[in-house]
């Protein structure tokens, strides 16, 4: 088999490891390396199926599937003894959505992944790096105006909505930061009941679901939002849920 034939073989097997193309199967039987490639790709599919428990249905895909009209079964019965392919689509689409829905539910019950935990560690390290700056800012009674805060938040493609929700929770600290290299973030702080409450806004989505982080001093929540993440960090006995509601409703994404 020359290079061109190999590339053709590979293209077919990669596109459909379950191919029943007789030429492909014959070539695989005649060449252990090709057979291994087929086996590897089938194994990859098995792993993908097992792993897809956490992959949400892409936006619009479910709608596209369900938009395919179901055939009139009475007409189908008179025209052909076998169900029309589109009828199958509908049934399969329903099964697909059900299967992914179930597995997503399963995934939500899992603990944070190692990458989420590493992300949480980075956030906590960042808080400790900024702690002196934070302490001096919080020691002053000055608060920051929305235009100034939003100038800083533009760095992370976001802004605070002056909707009145934060009237009693003024921002006391706002600085650009970089919790994840190459991704711009904004670090805000407000005065909580138990100490400083940190709000970090990152304009990307490095986590796959909401989860909590904790160390000896701090509690935190990582909250995926539409176009990024919001992380709340406060002292261990701080009630972060109220800040979650407050800032979830006050942060807009502008890019």
């Amino acid at each position: 088999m020359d290079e061109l034939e190999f590339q053709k073989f590979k293209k077919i097997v990669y596109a459909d490891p379950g191919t029943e193309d007789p030429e492909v199967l014959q070539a695989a039987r005649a060449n252990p390396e090709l057979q291994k490639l087929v086996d590897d790709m089938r194994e990859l599919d098995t792993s993908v199926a097992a792993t897809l428990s956490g992959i949400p249905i892409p936006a619009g895909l479910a709608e596209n599937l369900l938009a395919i009209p179901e055939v009139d079964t009475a007409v189908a019965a008179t025209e052909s003894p076998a169900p029309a392919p589109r009828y199958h689509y509908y049934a399969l689409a329903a099964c697909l959505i059900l299967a992914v829905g179930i597995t997503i539910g399963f995934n939500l019950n899992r603990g944070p992944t190692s990458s989420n935990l590493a992300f949480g560690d980075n956030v906590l390290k960042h808080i400790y790096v900024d702690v002196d700056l934070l302490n001096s800012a919080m020691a002053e009674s000055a608060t920051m105006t929305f235009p100034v805060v939003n100038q800083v938040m533009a760095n992370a493609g976001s802004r605070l909505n002056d909707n009145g929700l934060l009237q009693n929770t003024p921002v006391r600290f706002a600085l650009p930061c970089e919790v994840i290299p190459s991704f711009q973030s904004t670090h805000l702080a407000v005065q909580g009941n138990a100490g400083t409450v940190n709000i970090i806004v990152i304009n990307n989505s490095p986590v796959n679901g909401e989860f909590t982080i904790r160390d000896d001093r701090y509690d935190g929540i990582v909250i995926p939002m539409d176009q990024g993440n919001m992380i709340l960090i406060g002292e261990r006995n701080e009630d972060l849920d109220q800040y979650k509601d407050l800032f979830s409703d006050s942060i807009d994404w502008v890019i």
Partner: protein
Amino acid sequence: MDIEGQAISEAADKEPESKMDRELLYNAINKLDADYREPLLLQVIGGFSGKEIAEILKLNNNTVMTRLFRARSKLRQEFNLDPELTEDSAKHNP
């Protein structure tokens, strides 16, 4: 693959070798563009043929097969099992 049958449950039973493998693969699938992830999901989970995927996604069959090829190539690249896609191969199909 039979969506209503045992193929999926068999697949689900056969976990990747370690939790880390599963996480790496999960991340690799998540990193795929939707253009690649959608047909892969439809084929692997839904058991749809290339022609059926083409109809669902309103694409032509060649485009679907190319996207499936690239989806698996990219996954294998994540595990250093495949060389980077060349410009030539990328131009081969839409």
